[in-house]
Structures are given as structure tokens and as C-alpha cells.
């Protein structure tokens, strides 16, 4: 495969930014292998993200082409495209090339994992969509290895997409290790350029904007928010990135009811890989916590909870509903123990802080975001400060509770919902966890 084909196949790329000499690009276009389309169609639809709402496709007087152009705001973070932007697509038909792929994962699956893995392979063979509904700590990634290997052997092009860069960065080395001679591309915002034809693509969901009918098989990890009611363009983009008959495998610990209804074939794992039940949240009231913290006073119940963990030398996470509240609580937490740190989603040092918590150099972390998954901190204790806040919906609360008891050595731990009134979301999260534990025992 020529370098330009390897780069462009399945992709949709701004012509101006193709990393090839212009003559080479032009030759491919003249030959009919590649084709050029307008960034925004005459009807006002973005060719890259399929946005077509006039709230997001905006007309303006363009000094580049001298006409009234439209530009797309939905995918603007990936570099703005407008009516006069030329996009290049590869059109020449693709011949499937089978080749053997090395597979060097030698771990062992639990019987539940094994069942799910077989069921997913079966769905891929039948080209049907599939939902893997598995609790936090079920060992989801290992379940995918064997189905992915089988698909690679058949010459299928595969993508694993997840909403967060963290997840992609965490998956990348694990897949590189499992498939050492497969060309794996890891794509996220500002990721380094990858060469060759990516047989297995690990990408943030946003990076899928740059693909069109590229994949024979797609895994959507952390599909909790699917079908992305808040961001319909993402759902369109996922569907655009795959070939029409490609099966999509959705993976989630907290799938929406809509997704559960949409996808006919499910496999479920309600049991953690180590077999112990999920810790069940306990409720503690924390009246007017926001006002107290704002006034420089940490509520007594919370202080006592923290002191208890400090005394037992157990690492802990405190989840807060906003960065603002964390900042107000930070000096108060420092007063209790100077080795309690704070972290938020854009903190570049967050990975390091999590490592320090695991190593025991930090006693606790106050956070406004769900931290790296897949990181297991033995003996971890968790409190949600203001579990009644609207940012903590059922799915978020289940994810947070899922941080506790992941280690096989100590599968227990406390998860406390400190609240200013019990919400339906809290009750729903707790009911789900109890349900998983009942089902998981069976």
C-alpha cells in the first residue's frame, strides 16, 4: 500500500494539511483514487461531523474566497472547516488482506469473562451490534482481546473509541503488548503523527470526526452517555466512521435505558473479577455543607470521617461537585492534614498525585472528576461530599463507588454519600449496586 493510501484510506482530511507533496495528492485525485469535497455542503451540512443545524453552521463573509461562506462550530476544535475548505477522501476500493497477527496475552479469564468474550466473538461473526454491560472492576479490556485477535486475523480494520484521552492512553500500552506486530494507531487531541495503515485504531470519540466508512468493527468503550443525548453529533460521527454493515460493540458499566433497549444482544457481568461484591453506598446527612465550607468551616461529621481514615492509615478520595468548592475546602483540609491534596480534571499533575496516593505519600485527594480508571488503590475509602448535587447522576455515582474495593487483596472499603437531602439519583445508584450484587452471586 502506498503511503498516501495508507494515510487516507477511511479518513477525511483537509487538503491543505495533508502531509504529502501537492503533485502526489493531485495525481491521486486525477487517477480517481481520491476525491475532493467541500467542507460544508451546499445544503449547509458539515462533511466532517455531519452537523446541519443552523445554530452551529454559521454564515460569514469570508476573505479567503471572497464569498459568503459557512463554517462549522461543532468540530471547530479540530481546526475550522468552511464552505471553501477542500476535504480529501480516498475512494479506490479496498481489498481485504489477511495476515497472521501475533497474540501475546496469556492471562486467564474468569468463567463470566469467558462467556462474555465468546458472546462478543459470536456477534462479530454475525455482524450484529452488542452491548457489554459489566460492573466497574469486571476486567473489561481482557474480555476484548480474543475477539479482537480473531477479527484482526480475518483482515478486519478495528477501532476502539472512548470519550476520554485518559482511557485511550491507558488502553494503548495494553493493546501494544497483546498485539505486538499489529500496526496500532493511538489518536487523541495533539497526539503525535502515526505512520502506515492503522489496522487497530485506538481513538477518542472526537477523533472519529476524521474517519468515514473506515472500520469493519468498532468498540465504543465507556458508552455510558450513549446515545449522547447531549451531543447528537457524536452519535452521528460514530455511525459515519464505520462501514454500513460493521458491528458496533458498546461497553458500559452504566448503560442508559435507551441503549439497553436499542441493542438487542447483551452480555452482562455483574461480578467483579475477584468475585467479591461491590461495596454498597451508605448515606450520611451533611446539612448546608456548601455554606459551612464557604464560611471556612468543615462540617464535623466530615472532619470525623477524615480523621478516622487518617488514624487507620487508609487512603481516601473526597469527591466534590465543583472546583470552586474544592478550592474553598482545600485550606480546611490542609489544616486537618497537610498531606491531603486537591486535583481536578485539567490538572497536569493529576496522574502523579494519584500515584502518590497509592504509594502512601499522600493521605487523601479531594477531586472534582472521576480519576483514571483501571488504577487500583488498595484499601481505598471514598466519600462524595454533596452527593445530592445535580452533577452526581446515577451513572457518576456508580462509577465513583466503583473505585472502592478493586484490589483482590482487600475487596472491601467504605463508600459514603454525604448529602443535603437524598435524591432519586442516589437511590437509583444504590439500588443498581444492590441489584448487581444479587445477580453477581447467582
Amino acid at each position, binding site marked *: 500500500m502506498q503511503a498516501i493510501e495508507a494515510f487516507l484510506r477511511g479518513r477525511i482530511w483537509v487538503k491543505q494539511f495533508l502531509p504529502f507533496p501537492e503533485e502526489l495528492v493531485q495525481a491521486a485525485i486525477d487517477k480517481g483514487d481520491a476525491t475532493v469535497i467541500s467542507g460544508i455542503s451546499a445544503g449547509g451540512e458539515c462533511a466532517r461531523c455531519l452537523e446541519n443545524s443552523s445554530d452551529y453552521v454559521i454564515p460569514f463573509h469570508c476573505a*479567503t474566497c471572497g464569498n459568503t461562506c459557512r463554517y462549522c462550530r461543532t468540530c471547530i476544535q479540530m481546526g475550522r472547516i468552511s464552505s471553501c475548505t477542500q476535504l480529501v477522501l480516498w475512494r479506490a476500493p479496498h481489498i481485504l488482506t489477511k495476515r497472521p497477527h501475533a497474540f501475546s496475552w496469556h492471562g486467564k479469564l474468569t468463567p463470566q469473562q469467558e462467556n462474555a468474550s465468546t458472546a462478543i466473538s459470536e456477534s462479530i461473526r454475525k455482524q450484529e451490534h452488542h452491548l457489554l454491560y459489566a460492573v466497574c472492576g469486571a476486567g473489561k479490556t481482557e474480555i476484548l482481546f480474543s475477539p479482537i485477535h480473531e477479527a484482526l486475523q480475518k483482515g478486519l480494520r478495528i477501532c476502539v473509541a472512548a470519550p476520554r484521552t485518559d482511557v485511550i492512553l491507558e488502553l494503548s500500552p495494553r493493546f501494544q503488548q497483546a498485539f505486538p506486530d499489529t500496526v496500532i494507531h493511538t489518536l487523541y487531541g495533539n497526539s503525535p503523527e502515526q505512520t502506515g495503515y492503522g489496522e487497530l485504531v485506538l481513538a477518542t470519540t472526537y477523533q472519529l470526526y476524521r474517519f468515514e466508512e473506515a472500520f469493519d468493527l468498532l468498540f465504543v468503550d465507556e458508552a455510558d452517555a450513549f446515545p449522547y443525548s447531549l451531543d447528537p453529533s457524536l452519535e452521528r460521527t460514530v455511525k459515519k466512521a464505520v462501514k454500513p454493515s460493521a458491528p458496533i460493540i458498546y461497553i458500559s458499566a452504566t448503560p442508559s435505558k435507551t441503549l439497553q433497549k436499542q441493542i438487542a444482544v447483551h452480555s452482562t457481568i455483574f461480578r467483579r473479577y475477584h468475585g467479591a461484591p461491590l461495596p454498597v453506598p451508605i448515606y450520611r446527612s451533611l446539612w448546608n455543607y456548601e455554606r459551612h465550607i464557604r464560611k471556612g468551616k468543615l462540617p464535623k461529621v466530615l472532619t470525623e470521617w477524615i480523621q478516622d481514615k487518617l488514624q487507620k492509615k487508609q487512603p481516601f478520595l473526597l469527591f466534590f461537585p465543583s472546583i470552586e468548592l474544592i478550592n474553598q475546602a482545600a485550606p480546611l483540609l490542609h489544616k486537618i492534614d497537610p498531606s491531603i491534596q486537591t486535583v481536578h480534571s485539567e490538572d497536569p499533575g493529576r496522574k502523579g498525585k494519584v500515584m502518590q496516593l497509592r504509594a502512601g505519600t499522600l493521605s487523601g485527594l479531594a477531586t472534582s472528576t472521576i480519576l483514571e480508571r483501571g488504577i487500583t488503590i488498595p484499601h481505598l475509602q471514598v466519600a462524595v461530599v454533596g452527593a445530592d448535587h445535580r452533577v452526581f447522576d446515577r451513572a457518576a455515582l456508580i462509577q465513583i463507588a466503583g473505585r472502592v474495593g478493586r484490589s483482590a487483596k482487600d475487596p472491601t472499603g467504605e463508600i459514603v454519600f454525604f448529602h443535603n437531602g437524598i435524591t432519586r439519583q442516589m437511590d437509583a445508584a444504590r439500588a443498581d449496586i444492590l441489584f448487581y450484587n444479587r445477580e453477581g452471586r447467582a
Partner: protein
Amino acid sequence: MNCCLCNQKLQFIPSWRGIFLYEAPDVACAPCKNAFSKLTLPGCKYCGKEGEGKCQDCFYWEEHGYRELIESGKSLYRYNEAMKDWFHQYKFLKDVLLAQVFAKELREALANERAMIVPIPLNEEKLRERSFSQVDQLLLSANIPYKHLLEKCGDTLGTKTRQERMATQQLFRLNGEAVPKQLLLVDDLYTTGTTMRQAAKTLKEAGAESIRILSLIRA
């Protein structure tokens, strides 16, 4: 319609002004707009930077051959985090719609202006590359009439140090339009004041008597 900055749903709050007078609808929500920070008066006589008397930058210009070139001036906002984000998305991601965020404030600042309003221009090449002039677009969104008198000569400021900037000669030339006695120069971001001083110098030499300046942001 959602807020153009945070994409949350915009709450429409009808006001008597909106009912009786035509007013462009808000494109940003109240929390996003509140994150911008207005400069308080009085500040530096020339650029509006907060503090006592002339700011350091303007003091430098006054002492180095640009005395009284600018009669007076002001800026509307501080260059805080929210403003940096806005500026990045507007200028570098080329999100033209974002010009409307400050339409009302610019309109209030300029609606009763009697001097000719003159935007700082981009050079031709840059304009074609960026697809819009960020200063013109701000004025267009505010529905403020303006007229170009200047053209930008070659080189841009981007890569130069402060000293090099200050020493740079002749950033602008006249575009051939008649220069009136009174005018108001408008730019998006006031950093050291080089751009404004150079533009004012060119216009003063062409016969302008009173030059005032307005910047959206004071860095």
C-alpha cells in the same frame, strides 16, 4: 439556541429594552459573561490599565518620542482566563460568531462617538489566511460604522521581542482615503501599545489632530 461559549441552553429573559427597542439576542449565557472582568475607571489615561496615573508602557512611549500622540484612550476588559479562552477561540480557531459576545458592550462604548472610527487592519496575506479581520468583525457585530484609513506593511509582530517591537519603524501606511481631523482607533488587544502608537503616528503625519484609542482588552 445554546451559549456559544459553554454550549448550555440559553435562558431567554425578556427585558423592556428587548420589547421596545431592537436588541440583538445574547449569544452567551450570564455565567459565561460574568467570567469576563471589566476594567474599572479611572485607569491609565491612554490605555485604561488600572493603577495610578500613566501605566509603565504608556509612560515609556510618552518619554520616547511619542508624547501626546494619543490624546486619550481606554480598554474595556482585563485579559483574564475567560478572556484568554475567548480570544484563542475567536482569533486562532477563527470562530467568527464569538464577535457577538461583546456586541452590546462595544455598542454602548461607541454608539455616541462622533469621531471617525478606524480599525487597526490586518495585512492582505494574513486576512486571506484568517478569512476575517477580527477588529472589523467586532465592529460589524456591534453595528458600528467604521472606515479603514490604514494598510499594514509586511512583517507581523508575532516573533519579535519587546525591544525589537518598540524599535520597529513604519508598521502602517495610508490607504489613500482622506484623513479627518478627529478619529478613534480601535483594536482588539492592547499589549505594549506599539500597534496603536505606530498607527497614530502615521495618521498624525497625515493631518489628524485628535486621536483617541479604544481596545477591547488590556493585557
